[in-house]
């Protein structure tokens, strides 16, 4: 059993149509820790000590959020600025997160083909996530490819929400039960609900 910590961040929770059902599904998964960041810190005054203690108690840390302007919602940035202190996460004596896994579950408004050099977003999705990837590296963590839903705004009408949410639940359970194949995941740019590298049995 891996200790899984899920951080959910969406400042527009009430109007969300994909992240909200995803968060609800994550909350229902037993044996993991689920934190709604905007609920915990509605006034953005993050409790650094409490957050660092949470990180120390986890093996896998997953951030679930919608992409805002090619980046995270602002509270996650605030969280990173404050919680990943030098002397804790990096720098002299800062190795407390070494060996843990950082993963993202993001939704993007644009379609998959937009995130190419020929597409209107001009760069592959992973390029926009490199700051987070490098953050993980500096903290000596393993960065695992993100779980992604493209065309998220059109997903409800296209019937894409239910499979994505079900895949999310499978992903979280697999992470919890050590059935997620991180090495197989590394061979993919991104993971989606129909391409989840999950083993049937616990890895020996």
């Amino acid at each position, binding site marked *: 059993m891996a200790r899984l910590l899920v951080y959910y961040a969406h400042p527009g929770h009430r109007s969300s149509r994909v992240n909200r059902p995803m968060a609800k599904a994550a909350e229902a998964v037993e044996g993991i820790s689920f934190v709604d960041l905007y609920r915990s810190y509605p006034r953005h005054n993050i409790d650094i000590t409490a957050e660092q203690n949470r990180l120390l108690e986890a093996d896998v840390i997953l951030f679930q959020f919608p992409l805002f302007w090619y980046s995270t919602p602002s509270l996650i940035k605030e969280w990173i600025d404050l919680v990943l202190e030098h002397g804790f996460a990096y720098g*002299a004596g800062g190795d407390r997160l070494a060996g843990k896994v950082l993963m993202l579950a993001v939704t993007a408004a644009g379609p998959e083909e937009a995130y190419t050099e020929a597409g209107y977003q001009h760069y592959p999705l992973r390029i926009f996530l490199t700051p987070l990837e490098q953050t993980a590296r500096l903290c000596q963590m393993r960065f695992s490819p993100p779980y992604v839903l493209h065309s998220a705004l059109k997903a409800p009408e296209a019937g894409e929400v239910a499979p994505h949410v079900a895949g999310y639940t499978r992903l979280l359970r697999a992470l919890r039960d050590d059935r997620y194949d991180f090495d197989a995941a590394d061979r993919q740019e991104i993971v989606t609900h129909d391409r989840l590298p999950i083993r049937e049995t616990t890895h020996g």
Partner: protein
Amino acid sequence: MGELLFLAFVFLCAGVVAVPIAARLGLGSVLGYLIAGIAISPILSLFHVDVVSIQHFAEFGVVMMLFLVGLELEPRLLWQMRARLLGLGGLQVGVTTLAVMGVAMALGQPWSISLAVGLVLALSSTAIVLQTLNEKGLMKSDGGQGSFSVLLFQDIAVIPMLALIPLLALPELAETLHPADTAGHDGADGHSSLSLVEGLEGWQQTLVTLAAIAAVVVGGSVLTRPLFNFIAVARLREIFVAAALLWVVGIALLMTLVGLSPALGTFLAGVVLANSEYRHELESNIDPFKGLLLGLFFITVGAGIDFGLLAETPGVTLALTLGLIALKAAVLCALAALFGIGGADRWLFTLGLAQAGEFGFVLLSLTVANAVIPHPLADHLLLVVALSMLLTPGLFILYDRVIAPRFHAEEEASEAEDDMPAGSIIIAGHGRFGGVVNRMLRGMGHEPVVVDYSSAQLQMLSALDLRVYFGDATRPDLLEAAGIDDAAVLIIAIDGREQITEMVRHVNRSHPKVHIIARAIDRHHVYELYAAGCRDIIRETFDSAVRAGRSALEALGTHPFEAERTARHFVSFDRHHIARLADVYDPDIPIHENKAYIEKAKQSLAEMEAELSGKGDSFTGRADRGWTPPTLEDVETVTEQSKG
């Protein structure tokens, strides 16, 4: 005097014993009272107590109940109900009357007697049904609203019935009849010896009647406010109660004088006052009287059941009673379908109104007095009416235990996801504090019920078209009237320290599910409120003091964001400090004698000073944390790592 005390003792005793038992068994208070009445009927007959005249007195409880129902019903809502009121109510009375009449004729009664019986039995029991619906919180349901429409129409229909019944008199009966004794029915029939309209021409009568109704409506909307403002200034509770009673009794009297139903008149007066800020105060003042009188009324119904007659003809009586209930239920069920009342509500409507009612007693005594129905038949019908009322609580239990759960399960399955906060809000006190809370909540589309004791404040707010109710929010009964039973949140914004604590203690005990937000006068009051059970305590001057401190720092040239962070961390430090002191706070020991408290307070003060002089690490340290740049050592470590 002795006899009066004896009677009061017997009635109160029966009620106090039977009702809690019935309530505990989940049978409802009405059945408890009825059983109490049956239990004491031997004692009453032993002392030759005139149960019927007590019943007529107790019927005033119905009048008061309709006043209270009217208070709950704004004119706008009444207008919305008009289709159901006339359609559903009119058809129920009409169809049921004809159906009962048909059965009576089939059983060999002449048409005039049959019609009278039909009219008598078409009516349902306003007292039992409304009391039970209120008790079970079903008044606002579709079935409850439908039932109410029918009952209201019946109360109106009684008036023409009273006029119609004497016309059905049988000549051969009239000869054998002694001079009519119609006195004593002034509870509902308007045939009292006092009358303003006697001896007037038809058009004059109509004019007087219309004038009386106009007086109730105009008087209610124009006179009440200055009258109650005048009384409110005195701040004497009993005078307010007296004024409320005077209002109801006065209107009932006026209606009786012009030959209208007093129940209808007070209902109208209630509707007129439904928008008044004094509504909740009136409600909480009248409610105990209504409760006691209705209880007395139900006891007299129980005591009035003639078990001798029932023993003589058990089969016929029971068959008639059950037949009546079945017939009325069938008519109600068909009408519910016609008017789109579905699901569990249809059953509530059908079973709830299937009995005969208290107006039946009144009409029956009138029929006997006017030689419409022969005496033995009337006695029998009286028994049928009483038995059908006795069975009604049983039907409600059937609805509650068997029918509603079935439908409820279905509804729950199809319930849509919605996490918008629901439930109503009560704000106690509408001054500088409560007013801001009210405005903010209204901005989010909520409609808090505001209760305040200052009539000056109320006048100002009514001028702004904000709905506020007059009353002392610390009184439990007023909180009941303001809807604490259904409230999700209670905000206590009154001033008195003791009253705030007492209110928290009371509501926390009686309604543990209500989220209480209370204002603490100072630090020690925080501990008191915590001990009283409040978990959402707002110190009334703390936030503004912190803001003043932040302003001072900014004025001294501190960077505004740094000042903001200092303020935030001061707040969290102070919260930590207050929680630590709460552990050692003891309401029974004065602060200056509480050694543990003084010790901890000194310790906190020392920490705070260390912080301020820059030696400590809890709050200024925390304030800076996360924003200090990495050291050169950190940079070197990172560089080393990337090489290896």
